């Protein structure tokens, strides 16, 4: 795996990175998600002509959350990319449906050529913060502390009176609830 580090983005072995992540390597996991983001962005923007960039970024974030929460459905003996594209496709179709726009997204067209130009900055999104406010108070406080104020787990735990183990569980639950709210409320 080490020798792959230097390889270009398109070639880096996502499957191997995800396998490490599933063994508890949080650093590799963060790197993997960070590498996925521009690819997802490229896929979404290529398929969603006419939608504004904020909307596209919401679909990217929905996809990343689903990739995170549903990674137990990935079979580690299979390549990761097709699984990732299937998730993105589902979230894209779903987002279009909420807009009342029927869409046909052929899976076969999900290929790497859609990767967004690197350096395209992720957009600030106000709506996502409004959704965090709809979570139960403690969940919202935790996510705001971690994500918006970018404090570490330790400091947020201290501030909210959560032991590391409790914070771990609380964060996982909060993310699951956030995914449900994103799904229900739409964006």
């Amino acid at each position: 795996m080490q020798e792959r580090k230097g390889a270009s983005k398109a070639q880096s072995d996502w499957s191997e990175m995800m396998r490490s992540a599933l063994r508890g390597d949080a650093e590799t996991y963060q790197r993997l998600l960070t590498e996925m983001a521009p690819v997802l962005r490229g896929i979404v923007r290529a398929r969603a002509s006419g939608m504004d960039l904020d909307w596209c970024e919401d679909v990217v974030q929905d996809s990343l959350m689903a990739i995170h929460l549903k990674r137990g459905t990935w079979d580690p003996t299979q390549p990761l990319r097709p699984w990732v594209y299937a998730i993105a496709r589902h979230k894209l179709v779903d987002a279009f449906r909420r807009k009342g726009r029927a869409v046909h997204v052929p899976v076969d067209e999900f290929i790497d050529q859609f990767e967004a130009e690197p350096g395209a900055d992720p957009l600030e999104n106000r709506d996502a913060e409004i959704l965090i406010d709809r979570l139960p108070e403690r969940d919202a406080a935790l996510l705001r502390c971690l994500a918006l104020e970018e404090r570490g787990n330790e400091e947020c735990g201290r501030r909210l009176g959560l032991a590391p183990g409790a914070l771990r569980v609380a964060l996982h639950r909060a993310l699951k609830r956030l995914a449900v709210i994103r799904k229900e409320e739409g964006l």
Partner: protein
Amino acid sequence: MKTDQLIAILAGDTVMPHRVVPRVFGFTAAGLALTAMIALTILGVRGDLMQAMSGPVTMMKWLLPLGVALPALAAAAKLTSPQTRRIPALWIAPAVGVVAVAWLLQIVVATPAPELLPAVLGSSRQACLISIISISIVPLALAIRVMRDGASPAPMHCGACIGLAVGGLSTAIYTLHCTEDAPLFFLTWYGLGILIVAGIGALAGRYLLRW
């Protein structure tokens, strides 16, 4: 929230996921084992079980439900993965259904009209339906619960498949007790029981398996 911030908190969530497919099988089996034990303790097993299981007609009381249930179970498990588009083995379930319906129609045609209704109604149709549905509820609920961690490309189909699977397996369990061996009876009521459970599964899937 910026995407980078989202990624940071996602990576900070260190609760590891369970593999979904083994858990679907595990929880379904555990739920069925539990309700089977309770049901058969209450109802009892028919005395001539070995004979019934080897008779060419009564054998069908197990073979048909299992022929529907096993492909449906495999399909339900496959349908928890977002990549699944086609399920090759699934055709077996409706094919078994068609065989059952054809058999039923053939007997209906061959039976004199006055005998038809009593044979269909039998004497335990209520107990039959209630038992099949009762045996199904707990394993179906457990399976759906586990499948909520899945990412089905077709939530309603996924729910229908697990309902079909659990309904069929419950029927195979109930028939360890049931002594009504007339095909007119069991084709009608077993079939109806399995379809009701499949319907419950489809409905549950539609609302609970979306992601």
